[in-house]
């Protein structure tokens, strides 16, 4: 615990120290990134120990804040989330040091490092906080520091808009959390998490359900559950890439942590929770991946893919909870294992994808798919890392994404066998939906990889792209290796989640590992298969290499089959690749908005074509809603006089009215 607190302190103080070197970008970077790296590495050790310990380590210090106590506890659930936080943050810090230096002539980097380190420290504090005040304070620090990280390039209008959308969304979520904690606190007569768990048995089903729904809204806004996801596709592209990697890789998972922690407070889950989580997961998965398929902005597509993956995680956890409430432990264990494994896997793969997208952005200066292309030749290391990440996210066999999705399939199919009645049909239908999600995800990532890395460059920026330096490609390499290794040893990886599952869901660690090693889930064989596939691939590559050495091919254009002078006009564009699916499969509301002015007449003048990619929910629901309210509030404009004295007068009036109310109440009800 001491080591953990030291790590947090290093993070905070190195960030503070960086502030003092506002004019010396290199020193600020060294202090900020170095401090983050040291802090994260130190924090990893207690986190790993926490993962295996049955009894939690806790610390309680007195705190002057009313209702608050500095109560932190490192249990298996906290440790489960701390590890991805620290691993990804350490890599993102190394990467970000180099990534941000490109801006050093135009911007001060010190505040960015201050907020980065504060962001990491507050995320770590959120998952260990065991007091409502401490939790909410860390939660707010996390949200607000992320806001400042997102608005790094605040001179751009899109970035400012994205920042505001994020800030509004996160605060709406926090409002739900406040309501939830007030409800829990009133029941428990305390603001300490330990006391919440004690009152679980006294809660009526209605109030437990209300708390659960509030948690879904409050934490869901952070995790990106549809329809609360609208900030993700705005904020992720706007943020610097290492920040998007951290936000998408771990911050949205903190929302899932919140849901799991709330379920711990509430004790035995009610029967309807599992299906609700499954529905949340399926809608998130389908909507996220459908919108990811045709996005033109590389990072925006990745953001939608994050919504999809959070959907998959919730789907798996939902199936697990459903298994618990309906008394099918095998289904429960497979579902929970799949969900938890996917949380870790997604941190690795999405971190990898965002960091390589950042490397592309760094090397070419654009993230517009229609201006990229042919980068495999110019940025080989980034290209290989990105391909591995895409294969992993698309759940292609020898990588880690496949293993967790396979567990989710197993859980659902087993549920289809064991459940009865309507839930059986529903779950089997959901398997079909999951398959649809998987198919769309493969199309999405084939498109991203194909358009960005293969073919001819579509612009001069892409033609003159340069590979990023080792500071940026090394973290990519580390994450890619993690993705490969995690795919090879799934059984070992999943079995270290046993304490977490026991603690949150009350399934004993022994049962958990036993079921996963049983013939019903041949995880070991799966890992072995992945090893075999890798060996075959490497062997094949070696054979090809040897053969290639003997027969040296000569470049010859005579029979070029039309590719003698390849131009970008011969290849698929990002849009045309997705065109068939978008126009044939998707309902109109999901499609990108295209406005065409067709050339007309015998001597046609110029035509026009413009395509926009708005989020169907934000432009169909939220925008009209907020605009209507903005109109109503505009009628109150006369209150804003622009004179300080008037505003102060408002204060006095409110104060006097409040005092008068107290006095009046005293007279009426003595």
């Amino acid at each position, binding site marked *: 615990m001491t080591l953990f607190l030291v790590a947090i302190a290093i993070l905070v103080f190195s960030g503070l120290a960086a502030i003092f070197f506002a004019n010396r970008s290199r020193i600020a970077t060294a202090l900020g990134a170095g401090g983050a790296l040291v802090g994260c590495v130190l924090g990893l050790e207690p986190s790993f120990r926490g993962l295996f310990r049955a009894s939690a380590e806790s610390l309680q210090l007195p705190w002057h804040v009313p209702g608050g106590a500095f109560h932190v506890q490192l249990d298996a659930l906290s440790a489960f989330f701390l590890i991805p936080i620290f691993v990804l943050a350490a890599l993102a810090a190394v990467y970000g040091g180099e990534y941000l230096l490109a801006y050093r002539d135009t911007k001060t980097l010190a505040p960015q490092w201050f907020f980065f380190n504060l962001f990491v420290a507050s995320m770590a504090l959120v998952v260990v906080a065991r007091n409502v005040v401490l939790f909410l304070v860390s939660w707010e620090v996390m949200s607000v520091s992320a806001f400042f990280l997102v608005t790094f390039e605040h001179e751009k209008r899109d970035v400012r808009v994205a920042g505001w959308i994020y800030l509004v969304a996160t605060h709406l979520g926090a409002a739900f959390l406040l309501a939830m904690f007030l409800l829990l606190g009133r029941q428990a007569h305390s603001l300490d998490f330990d006391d919440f768990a004690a009152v679980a048995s006294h809660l009526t089903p209605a109030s437990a359900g209300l708390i659960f729904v509030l948690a879904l809204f409050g934490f869901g806004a952070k995790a990106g559950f549809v329809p609360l996801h609208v900030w993700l596709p705005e904020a992720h592209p706007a943020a610097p890439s290492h920040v998007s990697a951290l936000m998408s890789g771990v911050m949205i998972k903190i929302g899932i942590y919140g849901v799991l922690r709330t379920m711990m407070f509430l004790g035995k889950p009610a029967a309807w929770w599992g299906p609700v989580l499954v529905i949340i997961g399926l809608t998130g998965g389908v909507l996220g991946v459908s919108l990811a398929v045709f996005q033109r902005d590389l990072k925006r597509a990745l953001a939608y893919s994050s919504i999809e993956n959070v959907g998959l995680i919730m789907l798996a956890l939902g199936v697990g909870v459903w298994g618990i409430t309906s008394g099918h432990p095998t289904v429960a264990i497979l579902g929970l294992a799949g969900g938890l494994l996917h949380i870790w896997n997604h941190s690795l793969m999405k971190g990898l994808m965002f960091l390589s997208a950042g490397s592309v952005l760094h090397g070419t200066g654009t993230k517009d798919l229609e201006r990229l292309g042919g980068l495999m030749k110019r940025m080989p290391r980034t290209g290989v890392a990105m391909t591995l990440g895409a294969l992993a996210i698309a759940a292609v066999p020898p990588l880690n994404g496949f293993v967790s999705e396979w567990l989710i399939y197993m859980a659902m199919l087993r549920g289809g066998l064991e459940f009865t009645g309507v839930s059986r049909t529903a779950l089997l239908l959901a398997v079909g939906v999951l398959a649809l999600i998987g198919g769309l995800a493969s199309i999405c990532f084939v498109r991203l990889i194909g358009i960005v890395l293969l073919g001819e460059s579509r612009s001069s920026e892409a033609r003159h792209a340069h590979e990023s330096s080792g500071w940026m490609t090394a973290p990519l390499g580390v994450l890619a290796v993690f993705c490969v290794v995690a795919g090879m040893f799934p059984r070992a990886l999943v079995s270290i989640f046993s304490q977490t599952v026991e603690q949150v869901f009350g399934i004993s660690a022994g049962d958990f590992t036993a079921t996963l090693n049983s013939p019903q889930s041949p995880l070991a064989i799966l890992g072995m298969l992945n090893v075999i596939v890798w060996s075959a691939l490497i062997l094949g590559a070696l054979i090809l290499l040897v053969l290639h050495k003997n027969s040296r091919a000569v470049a010859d254009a005579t029979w070029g089959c039309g590719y003698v002078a390849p131009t970008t006009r011969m290849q698929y564009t990002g849009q045309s690749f997705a065109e068939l699916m978008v126009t044939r499969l998707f309902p109109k509301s999901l499609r990108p908005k295209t406005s065409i002015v067709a050339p007309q007449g015998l001597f046609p003048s110029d035509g026009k074509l413009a395509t926009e990619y708005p989020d169907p929910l934000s432009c169909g629901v939220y925008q009209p809603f907020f605009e209507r309210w903005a109109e109503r509030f505009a009628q109150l404009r006369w209150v804003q006089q622009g004179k300080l004295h008037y505003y*102060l007068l408002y204060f*006095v009036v409110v*104060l006097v009215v409040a005092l008068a109310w107290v006095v009046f109440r005293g007279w009426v009800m003595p």
Partner: protein
Amino acid sequence: MNPLLDLILVAVLLLNFVALGASQLRTVIHAVALQGVLLGATIVVAHSTVTVWVIVMAGAVIALKGVVIPRMLFHAIREVVIRREVDPIIGCIASLLLGGVGTALAVLFSKTLPIAHEHIGSLVVPAALSTVLTGFLILTTRVKAISQVVGYLVLENGIFIFGLLLVEAMPFLVEIGVLLDLFVAIFVMGIIIYQISQEFSTVSTRKLSALKE
């Protein structure tokens, strides 16, 4: 009930009227500085046992409220050359009258407030309320940025007096109050006065309405 404390609070109340009625900025600042010194003294008086820490706290309050902030205010008057009159929106007599009404109301209000038993009959709550109201009165009726700072200081003094109720139970709040003073000193002086005189070449807050959307 603490007769010495009440005596000091009566002086604080009288200084409120001086701050409201004086026509010279210089007098107003002197009044507020004296009020700050008296408040520092109240910390010592309000504690039943006087420790070194209490003395340090009181010293810090006196130094900040009584010396540092007034000096900065005088410095500001000299630096951005402004006329030395108060320049109120409503006249001095009217302000005094309003202040009197406010104080009377404060005494009435405090009778009906649900206060802990040991504080009933003491002047702490009426003095706090009336000082807060005086602060607001200065803030709303004076034009110059420097009077706004003075108004804010008086308002803050009122909040500080409220803190005396909790001085034994929650010393933390009083310490935070000292920090708030530092905040005033740096924030208000640095930003508001400097910026206003820079941007508008005047220190009247009336010009701030140019920022209205």
